[in-house]
């Protein structure tokens, strides 16, 4: 019994489908227990993910005077603010790296993370209209939301490159590890997004809590300060936050500041993977009754 509902049909209008085509069969019934993730179904709909990402990107910046340049303005303004307040006034030590670069290296993953979590946690509620009218694997929605955030990440990376050239820093081979780090932050953002999207379908409280949760997590991660400021007695707990490892990884790969990834980094990776898999299953479980509770 195949669980895939859509044959790869390429019927030309008017051909007689009754004869040759072997029709895929599908059983619709109440699912019990935890069930499967339905990754095959997801793959069938990969083009939808692409169109949803395009919709997110095109829709957001239509009819704005500055258009896509908003992608650059946001990280740039954030960097300037952090540099003026924390680099200039508070004089936070930045591991002997110019503060603009120090903060920008952290803003690349953090800016992405906060946007992606926001978008993917809202994805179910925002698309309630579509969900209640047509079937497609619901996992596509938070996935597309998390992926679309990568454009913001790319924009802040470009700003970093410009700053990098301005400050005449040497090229580092460790920069080539960037894709791994990007994958990790994507995975963690998606994990958080899946958990929150599933929860927010039932409890709209999530949208109230999310803003200050993200702010709290930002202070619990080395975005505006260096991880070396945290007392060593707290380091273990501090490193359990996957964003700590990820931000440190970005600073290390891009600027060579701070420690290279160590055993605690691997613990972060395990935590991220656990959160992602559990999030996917929780999401799938919520998905079944989603139309009835949204």
């Amino acid at each position, binding site marked *: 019994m195949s669980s895939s*509902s859509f044959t790869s*049909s390429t019927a030309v209008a008017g051909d007689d489908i009754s004869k040759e085509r072997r029709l895929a*069969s599908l059983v619709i019934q109440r699912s019990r227990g935890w069930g499967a993730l339905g990754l095959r179904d997801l793959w069938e709909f990969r083009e939808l993910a692409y169109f949803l990402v395009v919709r997110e990107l095109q829709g957001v910046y*239509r009819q704005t005077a500055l258009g896509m340049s908003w992608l650059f303005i946001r990280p740039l303004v954030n960097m300037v603010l952090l540099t003026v307040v924390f680099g200039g006034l508070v004089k936070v030590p930045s591991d002997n790296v110019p503060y603009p670069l120090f903060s920008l290296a952290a803003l690349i993953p953090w800016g992405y993370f906060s946007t992606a979590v926001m978008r993917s946690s809202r994805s179910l509620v925002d698309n309630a209209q579509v969900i209640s009218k*047509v*079937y*497609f694997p619901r996992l596509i929605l938070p996935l597309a939301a998390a992926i679309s955030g990568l454009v913001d990440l790319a924009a802040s990376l470009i700003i970093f490159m410009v700053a990098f050239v301005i400050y005449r820093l040497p090229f580092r081979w460790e920069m080539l590890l960037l894709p791994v780090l990007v994958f990790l932050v994507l995975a963690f953002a998606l994990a958080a997004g899946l958990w929150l999207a599933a929860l927010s379908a039932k*409890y709209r409280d999530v949208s109230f809590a999310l803003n200050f949760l993200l702010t709290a997590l930002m202070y619990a991660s080395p975005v505006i300060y260096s991880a070396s400021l945290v007392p060593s007695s707290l380091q273990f707990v501090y490193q359990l936050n996957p964003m700590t490892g990820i931000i440190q990884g970005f600073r290390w790969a891009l600027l060579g500041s701070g420690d290279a990834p160590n055993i605690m980094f691997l613990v972060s990776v395990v935590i991220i993977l656990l959160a992602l898999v559990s999030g996917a299953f929780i999401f799938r479980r919520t998905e079944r009754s989603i139309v*009835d509770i949204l």
Partner: protein
Amino acid sequence: MSHSVIQVEKLGKRYRIGKRLDNTPPRNRVLQAIGNQFSYLVKSLSEPAPDELIWALKDISFSVDQSEVIGIIGRNGAGKSTLLKILSRITEPTDGRVILHGRVGSLLEVGTGFHPELTGRENVYLSGAIMGMKRAEIRRKFDEIVAFSEVEKFIDTPVKRYSSGMYVRLAFGVAAHLEPEILLVDEVLAVGDAAFQRKCLGKMGDVAKQGRTVLFVSHNLVAVQSLCNRAIWIDSGQLKDAGSTADVIAQYLRTSYSSVQQQKWDDISAAPGNGKVRLRLVNIYPEDEAKAGIIDMETPIAVETQFWNLAPNARLGVTLHLYTEQQVVAFTTASSADEKWGGQELPVGLYRSVCHIPGNLLNSGNYRVTFLIVQNSDTVIYRHDDIVSFEVQDLKPRMGQWFGKEPGVVQPLLNWTTDFLGAGASL
């Protein structure tokens, strides 16, 4: 050679509805809301009470063969849309199961997934992908979709600038080119102008002719009658009847009457009237045994009236005024046309006057009858408004692709002659 493509077995769907609040005064309700801050949390964690649960569908079983066109009829809230939602995998059933063979496409509501800021072109791709089409498939049919929707000029304009008609046409265009093996359609007739509706139904007919299976939910009985070979009637979540379209529709109409076709008073002292006349009966019925109580446009109708004449030798007659739903008088008619008693002086006693309305006269729709007793052909001595009402059904299968109501109070079957006057167009 035909095999079932949809098999529904003991399908049930249960919903949880909110508890009905007591009719406490508003002031207390505010206090209640403050007192029960966490009521939603408590409710969502506790098992639902039995009175909070309703079965939107219960114990539904049927099967559909390949290339059948099945109509699903029933009142609002009967569970038709829930059934389509389960078949299209939008929601899961609580009980039972469905076995489907083939790709399912649904037209539950057109325009799903349209983004107002995106252009028509971009939305065609997006909406097609949401419905499960491949990009190559959409590209191949793109021109056809645009031509079908008649929005060529505006295809690169954001859809928020579209008129509602253009929007709906484009959305339906995408959905109509889905080419699934099983097509679920929910009330598409409600959208667009007459010409476009015709086009949509034509498209549906084509789909059926290509050997695909169509499930069609509609309130338009003419469309169901003309398009579907079989029909299913669902009433309050249960399967009431399934079978040939004509039978199921007849069965459905018989029990769904809201009109009052008969009024009867056996006790003369309680009957409406006055010192001169008292009413005993007004009854409307089809004068065709085979119709089994259903009045359609072809049926001859009888309006039977019975009254007591209390004044000796009064010159009385019955007059009927037939009103349409729009308060237009379709016609008036009087019993003075009767050869035997018309214009005669009536002795005291009980009289019956029957008016015969021929078939193929009235258009479909609701009619109300006003009853009058007229003395000496000029004085109304008794009047009773809206004494009975009835509905004329349009159940004639049509050849074309237009299933809406034809205009006009009457729809008589008239004689036409056409003659050939010679070849050549130059005169």
